[in-house]
């Protein structure tokens, strides 16, 4: 199965720790430039058991593009996670 994700470079810092981490931990996946602020990462995997948590750990620096169902799964997970912390809003 092919997984494609877009990664966002950090805006303020000198060191691109997103890119560094993807390159260090991204296994046999490949990286290609997309724009000044983003790059694409592509990998073929047998299952998503390992890659999904890894992609999720990047938070808003990562957007899964393919497959569509994985993208949907992550959206619904993040909605639920937001639900875990919704009450924080009132404390501000």
């Amino acid at each position, binding site marked *: 199965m092919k997984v494609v994700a877009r990664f*966002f470079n950090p805006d303020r810092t*000198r060191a691109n*720790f997103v890119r560094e981490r993807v*390159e*260090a*931990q991204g*296994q046999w996946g490949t990286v290609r430039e997309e724009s000044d602020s983003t790059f694409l990462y592509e990998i073929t995997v047998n299952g998503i058991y*390992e890659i999904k*948590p*890894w992609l*999720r*750990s*990047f*938070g*808003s620096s990562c*957007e899964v593009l393919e497959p569509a169902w994985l*993208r949907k799964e*992550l*959206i619904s*997970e*993040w*909605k*639920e*996670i*937001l639900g*875990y*912390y*919704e009450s*924080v*809003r009132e*404390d*501000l």
Partner: protein
Amino acid sequence: MNPFEKIYNYQIINRLDESNAVALTSQERAWLRTALAHASAADAFTPETFGKLNRLLLEEDFFDHRDMIVEKAKSKERQVYHPLLRALRRLIVQGKGMRLTSRIKRGGIKANQPGLPVKLEYSMVKREWYLLWYSSRGRSLMATKLQSIVSIEETAMSPERVDELRRKVSALLEDRKELAVIEVIPAYNAELSRILYAFSCFDKTVGYDEEKDLYRIRVTYLIDESEFLLSKIRFLGLRVKIVEGDGLRRRMRESAEKVLGRYGVERL
């Protein structure tokens, strides 16, 4: 094992202890031999120790797992051992002061900074070795990449002064400590060991509330490690929820909102 065997074993171990000998199994010796074959091993020991260990283990089987085991989910290894580790470790153990010359981030060199080396730390984020040291000029705790160190010179420091600075350092580190309480969502209790593994780099205690069937993990971390802790919490996704630690909770909410923004999801 019957009690007599136990007593006998106990006596043998005592004897070995008294004569300063350590008993190793053949498996441990084979592992040690394998470790000595690692490219970084020659830097990790003095030439005498390295040679001696190699001679002692010459007769051992070489357990070459590299043909049998493929490490698939591996991160790129940047730095396993740094040649300065040994020298610095000695300074720390012997309670010596130092004068440190290092490269600074924006280029240039900071020469002869006096201080006390305190601790060697391997950053799991950067995959690099750091030296924590107290700068007597700046009166602050510093972290310098071993990679950025140009030279170190040993200096004499009185034991009283060493104690004083070490106390200061512990107080500074104590100040930077934060506590977070993380709950395991009960539906994922079966994955507890995987969840705890994600926090393996942190000091933590785990409590279990039998009535609610609820695991609570109390994690102590330094402020500068909070981004790393957050990445672990995002890694675990729905499995865990931060219940104490306002800053972290706020950051998680921001992350979730920002991610949903990336996916073009409107606020509910």
